[in-house]
Every structure is written in structure tokens, then in C-alpha cells.
């Protein structure tokens, strides 16, 4: 299942937290050879993790990380506006209705579950967008992700790209709407109810009368 967790609440889920940052180190540092910093504990973290992002994390049955992504509002500091405006003709993408999604990561141990986990993480992003009234998410991604998004059924609009072949990186915009959700659900076999269930479990709501009498 997916959990939505803000950075400052990660400590309540130490196993999930540690395995996520370790899986990120494996994916971005070891496998993709990105120039990212890894702490002594083996956690890949950067300055955007310090901005209290909202993580969407697939939790495996043993409580460890299966896949995740990281979200921040584009009205404050984002990776794309700080470092990748070369991909957007110098345009800073700033909108209350657009969030930035970064560090899309899958655990190496999900194996055959990989496409389901990836689709779940994307659905979590879509659902948040629908629930919070957002339009889209923006992000920078590398060439190998193009096929993954295509398989998932959530292809971004490409805003710009640089580099060739497997070294290419692109800036993309993903629609956060019912159509995207329905498409990913259909391709993955994950039901819309399940997705809504993740959201409701992470952002529980009580009735207004209960607040006062409680």
C-alpha cells in the first residue's frame, strides 16, 4: 500500500524511511551514477529533502520501501527551477496548481512487482492532485524513464530535453486528473477504490460534530 508522509513525519516510520533513502542511494548513485550525496548511513538526501516534502511511498508487507517519489510546491524552491531551466528555455515553472515531483525510485527487491509498484506511486501522485485541486506535476527525468511512463500509461508532455541516447534528460509535465488516473488504473489493474483508500488512510477526516464533542 501507499503512504503519504511529510518529511517531518518520516521518523514515525524508521524502517520505511531508512530503506527509502538507501534505495535512493542505490538507484541514483550506484546504478545511474548521478552526482548525488550519500550520508555515512548510506542515505541519499539533498537540500530538497530538507524542505519538508510530501513523499508518496509504497510500503511492502515487511514494512520496507518498495517505491516512492517526492513532491514540493513550485511556488517555493524546486530542483527544476533552481538547476534545470536550461530544459525549459529559461522559464521558471511556478504555479499554485503545479507541484514538482522528483526522486522517483523503485526498490531493487520488488522484482516482478516493479510495474505494479511504479503504477501505484504514480496513482498516488494523481490522486493527491485530484484531491488537492492541482493541475499537473512537473519533473526532470532521464531517458530510461520514458518507457516506464509509457508502460504505466502516464506519459508526460515533454517541455524540453538535452543530451543524447541514454544520457538524455527531459523536463516533463504530467496531468493530475481523472483521465490519467483511469488510464493508469486500467493498465495496472489497480482499482480506483484502492487508490482512494490510500489517500483516506493518510489524510483521515472526522465529522465536524465529532471534533466538538470529542
Amino acid at each position: 500500500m501507499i503512504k503519504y508522509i511529510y518529511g517531518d513525519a518520516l521518523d514515525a516510520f524508521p524502517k520505511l524511511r531508512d530503506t527509502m533513502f538507501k534505495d535512493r542511494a542505490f538507484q541514483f548513485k550506484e546504478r545511474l551514477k548521478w552526482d548525488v550525496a550519500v550520508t555515512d548511513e548510506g542515505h541519499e538526501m539533498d537540500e530538497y529533502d530538507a524542505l519538508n516534502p510530501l513523499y508518496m511511498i509504497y510500503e511492502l508487507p515487511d514494512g520496507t520501501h518498495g517505491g516512492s517519489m517526492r513532491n514540493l510546491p513550485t511556488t517555493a524552491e524546486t530542483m527544476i527551477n533552481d538547476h534545470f531551466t536550461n530544459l525549459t528555455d529559461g522559464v521558471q515553472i511556478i504555479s499554485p496548481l503545479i507541484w514538482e515531483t522528483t526522486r522517483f525510485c523503485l526498490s531493487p527487491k520488488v522484482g516482478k512487482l516493479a510495474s505494479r509498484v511504479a503504477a501505484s506511486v504514480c496513482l498516488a501522485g494523481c490522486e493527491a492532485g485530484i484531491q488537492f485541486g492541482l493541475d499537473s506535476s512537473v519533473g526532470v527525468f532521464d531517458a530510461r524513464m520514458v518507457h516506464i511512463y509509457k508502460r504505466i500509461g502516464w506519459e508526460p508532455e515533454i517541455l524540453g530535453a538535452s543530451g543524447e541516447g541514454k544520457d538524455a534528460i527531459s523536463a516533463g509535465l504530467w496531468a493530475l486528473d481523472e483521465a490519467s488516473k483511469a488510464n493508469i488504473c486500467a493498465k495496472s489493474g489497480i482499482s480506483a477504490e484502492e487508490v482512494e483508500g490510500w489517500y483516506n488512510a493518510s489524510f483521515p477526516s472526522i465529522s465536524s460534530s465529532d471534533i466538538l464533542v470529542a
Partner: protein
Amino acid sequence: MTKLETFLDVLAGSQTPNDIQSLVEGLRESYGVSNAVYHAVNVGPMPYAALTYSSEWMQYYHDQKFVQVDPVVKGALRQFHPMDWKQLDWSGRGSREFLGEAITAGVCNQGLSVPIRGPNGQFALFTINDNCSDDSWEKFSKEYKRDMMLISHYIHRRVVEIIVPEDESDTRSLSPRETDSLRYLSLGFSRGQIADKLKISEHTLRVYIDSARHKLGALNTIHAVTTAFSRGLISF
């Protein structure tokens, strides 16, 4: 005009803190809610607020240091998604007692609060508040949440312009691509023609125009173009 257009119309003429206060008061009537609050917590040298709660309640809130138990404030400090009050943490006795007192003072049972994040730790909060059943509030939220996201952002940008006019660090300025897009639009080129000229896809062009629109506080492209003109950001 839609409610949002009416708001933007008034926003365009808002030049002073008093204008912002009237703008916020106007939201009550146009959206049919009981209260609206904009609060710039960490923007200028002093906190700034425009709101419709009674001054007695604000004084009492201050004297009782309710800011320490107010779940809206706690939630908005650490989260950035629009928050329905029913999703906040009311588990503390202090929070529930606080709500009881708030309601006695004319604050209503339903609320939607939008945390606003800007560059360099800029933080503000926008809230609308009304008295109704959970079901009708749910319906209202569904219909107008997006409006509230935009309104909160637009009020915030205008307040930043008014109270810290010297602050150039934010993103009022448009990139050459954005001004090019608006200039071509103003000259009557179609989106297809502009995309060709700028050698980008129409999708990308749309994102750039939307981006410029949000920076300018403009509802549509015509409004964006006229705003850009009036601020001297584009010229023929």
C-alpha cells in the same frame, strides 16, 4: 463573470493594505462564506493579516496564545496541501477547547485552509470558513478548492508587492520565453504559429503561457497580455 473573474477584477485595482482587506471581505459575499482570512506570517518585517473575524476574537486569540494550540496553524506550518479542517489533528484537549471558544466568537465549524509557500521560507496562510453540514461543505470544496488555491496565491503575490516592494528575489519577472509568448499572442499570432516561431511544441507553449499568467495574477491570456503591457514587461 465567474466568481474568480470578479475576484481578479478587484485584485487588479488593489494597491494598499486597506484594498486587500476589502478584497478579502468581498470574498464572503461572492463565495457565500462566513469568513475569509489571509495571514502573511513570514513575509515582511511584520506579520500582516486581512480577515473578517471580529477584532475582539483576534485580541482574545492573541492574549490566550491560541496560536500554540490552533491545529490550523500547526498543520499549515508543516504541510503545503489545502487542508480541510476536519483532516487536522484535533486530538489534543487544548485544540478542542480552542475550537469551542472560536465558535462562540463567530468562527464557523467548517474550514478550508491553504498554506502558501514562497521562496526563502516565505510563509502565509489563507482560510475560508463557513457554517454548514459536512455534506454541503464537501460539495462546496469540490467546486471551489481550485479557486481557493488560486485566490490564496494571487492575494499573497499582491501582498508581497505591497509590503515588501523592494524584494526582487521572487519570481515576478518573466523569462524571455514567457514575454516572447505573450508578445506574439498580443500581435494576434495563433498558438501554432507562435510555437513554430519559438521552436517549441504547442503543449510547451501552453505551459509557458500558464506560467506567465500565474506570475502576473491573470485569469486568461488576454488579461495576462494587458497586465504585462501595463507593467512594461512587454512592448511592441
